[in-house]
């Protein structure tokens, strides 16, 4: 067998936390041959991005390579001088980042960023590179390939930017591309077209790639081999089909099994029952732009209504309307059959108490300078009037309910908690008001699958104990399947379909629901290929969505 293009041996990496260096990757080996795609998979903290960057001889601030070797085509990247590495980066090794929107420089046109590497590395001149960019844009099926490069990043949609970034990585025809979660930030329908484009162009140019993701179904479509990582250690590595069919390790099997959580759908509410929350024909505007058009849905006691749709479909806006943060211009919102003032400032304390919210980013939703006791204690005191020892007891009780030992956590700061624990604090804070209705806005999207499942189980248990009603905003259909009783599908500020979960997941669907459902990647490695054959290259992603409009 020929010598691999990339050879990593015993790579250890250290990260700086609290002013001490601790090991975050513990001796990982990796071989990658020309034209091969390796999937790196694991939860956050597994070290996959760090390894991906180290494969380029690069570390972020606060990370250092402490041992092992990285050899690219015979060149030792660990000990190479900066100048040697700079000659390789962009030219022979390229990188595609998670968020193209953040990774394109907002101050320059796409094509100027595209031509930068070829021109600076002396591979092509400006004009050749521009023409090549247009060919790549066309190959990646970007609309108006002749013109799109002359736009600024903010003028191009997320899915298009991600493809433009793939084109940019291809600009010097590198031997190796590192894809670092390139579709994680995208909607499912957009994800497909990016996946198809990446696979296509990698095959065409025979480029070797490391594809980093936490999504198994995605990696199954993209990679020839999969390497599973857990907390800086390799768990196992095998060819994609072998890995999917017969994983050897328990940890790998647990990753495969995560999607198994599903609670039974509750019986339909009694006829004539008054819903806890009733949203009736609301229209909402940001300035002059209408963002909600006649949105109506009901949420009954003890039930979960999942609101799904892509970014910009108006899911979170509907939540803002219910909380009164964004008063709708017309329409009615009722709580237990009683009309609520549209502006939260006009609502009574009792009305405010009944509607609580849990946010997507627990990191930013908790005040970093307050202890857990203060964060949960505040609504306890505000809504329930408990003070001193009584307040502390109540906080301890709430912590107990979210399965965190009170004695250990009550005096900690949010920064001392893990992502899943922070989200639990967010739940406890909402519970502190003893509401009837809780809006969960993408509460599991920022969490790893195992942790997310724990949160979903907790929410389900609390619902059963307290007859809580949830409005569950998400773009992840697996989550919808796991917890919802009813589903509301939104698109462009309108409800396109709603009904019990059972009906929503069995045909016939509204065509948009169908598109959403069929766009969710499946574990089958042939899924993408079959889908493309079935639908045709021009009937995926934005194109398919636009056809529906």
């Amino acid at each position: 067998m020929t010598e691999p293009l990339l050879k990593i041996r015993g790579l250890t990496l250290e990260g700086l936390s609290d002013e001490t260096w601790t090991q975050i990757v513990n001796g990982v080996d990796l071989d990658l041959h020309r034209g091969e795609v390796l999937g790196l998979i694991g939860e956050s903290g597994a070290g996959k991005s760090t390894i991906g960057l180290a494969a380029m001889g690069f570390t972020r601030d606060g990370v250092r390579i402490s041992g092992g070797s990285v050899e690219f085509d015979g060149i030792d990247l660990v000990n190479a001088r900066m100048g040697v590495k700079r000659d390789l980066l962009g030219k022979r090794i390229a990188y595609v980042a998670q968020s193209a929107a953040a990774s394109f420089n907002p101050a320059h046109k796409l094509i100027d960023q595209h031509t930068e590497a070829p021109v600076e590395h002396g591979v092509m001149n400006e004009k050749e590179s521009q023409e090549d960019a247009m060919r790549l844009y066309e190959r990646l099926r970007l609309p108006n390939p002749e013109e799109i490069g002359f736009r600024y990043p903010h003028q191009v949609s997320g899915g298009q930017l991600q493809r433009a970034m793939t084109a940019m990585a291809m600009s010097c025809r590198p031997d190796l591309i590192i894809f670092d979660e390139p579709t994680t930030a995208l909607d499912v329908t957009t994800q497909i077209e990016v996946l198809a484009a990446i696979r296509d162009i990698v095959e065409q140019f025979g480029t070797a790639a490391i594809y980093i993701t936490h999504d198994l179904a995605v990696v199954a479509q993209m990679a020839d081999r999969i390497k599973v990582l857990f907390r800086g250690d390799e768990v196992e590595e095998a060819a994609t089909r072998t890995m999917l069919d017969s994983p050897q390790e328990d940890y790998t099997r647990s990753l495969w099994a995560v999607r198994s959580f599903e609670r039974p759908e509750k019986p339909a509410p009694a006829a004539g029952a008054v819903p806890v929350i009733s949203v009736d024909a609301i229209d909402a505007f940001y300035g002059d732009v209408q963002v909600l058009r006649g949105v109506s849905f009901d949420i009954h006691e003890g039930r979960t209504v999942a609101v799904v749709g892509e970014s910009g479909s108006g899911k979170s806006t509907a939540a803002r309307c219910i909380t009164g943060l964004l008063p709708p211009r017309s329409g009615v919102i009722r709580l237990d059959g009683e009309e609520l003032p549209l502006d939260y400032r006009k609502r009574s304390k009792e009305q405010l108490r009944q509607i609580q919210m849990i946010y997507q980013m627990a990191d930013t939703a908790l005040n970093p300078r307050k202890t857990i006791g203060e964060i949960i204690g505040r609504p306890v005191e505000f809504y329930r009037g408990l003070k001193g020892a009584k307040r502390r007891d109540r906080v301890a009780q709430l912590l107990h309910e979210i399965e965190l030992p009170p004695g250990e956590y009550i005096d900690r700061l949010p920064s001392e908690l893990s992502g899943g624990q922070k989200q639990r604090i967010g739940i406890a804070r909402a519970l502190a008001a003893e509401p009837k209705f809780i809006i969960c806005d993408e509460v599991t999207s920022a969490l790893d699958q195992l942790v997310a499942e724990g949160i979903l189980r907790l929410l389900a248990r609390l619902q059963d104990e307290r007859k809580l009603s949830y409005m569950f905003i998400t773009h992840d259909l697996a989550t919808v399947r796991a917890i919802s009783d009813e589903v509301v599908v939104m698109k462009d500020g309108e409800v396109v379909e709603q009904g019990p979960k059972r009906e929503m997941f069995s045909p016939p669907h509204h065509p948009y629901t169908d598109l959403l459902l069929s766009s969710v990647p499946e574990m089958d490695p042939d899924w993408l290929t079959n889908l493309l054959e079935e639908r045709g290259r021009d009937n995926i992603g934005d194109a398919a969505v636009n056809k529906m409009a």
Partner: protein
Amino acid sequence: MSNVLRIILQRLALGLLTLFVVSVVIFAAVNLLPGDFAQVILGQGATPQAVESIRRDLGLDQPVVLRYFDWLGGALTGDLGTSFAQANFASFVGEGAARGTTVMQQIAPRFANTMFLAGVTALIAVPFAVGLGILAALYRNTAFDKGANVFALTSISSPEFFLAYVLILFLAVLNPILPSLSNIYAGMGLGERLERTLLPALTLTLVVTAHMMRMTRAAIINLLASPYIEMARLKGMSPMRVIVKHALPNALAPIINVIAINLAYLITGVVVVEVVFVYPGIGQLFVDSVKIRDIPVVQACCLIFAAAYILLNLVADILSILSNPRLRHPK
């Protein structure tokens, strides 16, 4: 583009409104100053009759509101009135108040000198400070960075007259390269003018560098953790190119604002340096006029200072807006 145009027009209107409010404040403040031109000029001989007669000649016996609108109307048509001192002198020699030198005539050459000094200083200081800031960001946390910081902070912390004397000592006395006096006058050639202006300009450069340099450094370093900076590095771009081409264009807004504030300072706050170098700028005229309660001149100077601040901030605002591609190129 109409979007940007609308914002600019809004800012312009707001600037005019600010100028109007400032004119009220200036007029009120100047009129609240203790002391009275007539009394100061007459000194020992200030009999009630004499004071009264001078006040009547200068219109000081009119109600304040009336005088304000009189002044504002004049200012809008470019007539800033007649200096009290000049008017008084004219009436002594038997001519009408109208024959005295107008405030405009008095201020114009001084103001031109001030602008010349500010211009020369800006041409030296802005590229110097921004360049130093870029280098400090590039070599951050090295000896160079720390040295540049110490240098800039030392200069801004030292009194201006002290810096001026240090420069005079080194550049005029020990090594007589530049003249220590900057008495420029009308009709002087540009070369000679520049030579004489150089020392005060260098002094002022030392004073204004720190702000601009530190803001440039901070604004750039602030962006270095951005994903697009990482992307530029991963494309194999040199550190200098990463900073100048990728970080700087996105850091322009705060830098422009600090530059504007410092340029405004160069127009309005340089009286100490003018005194040290005997430079005939507007600062000296202003201080002299305050001393003798020459209200029209004081008001005119204040108005010019305010206008300079407002105008420069306005320009900074507009440039910051234009530096943002989202506003230049809407979707």
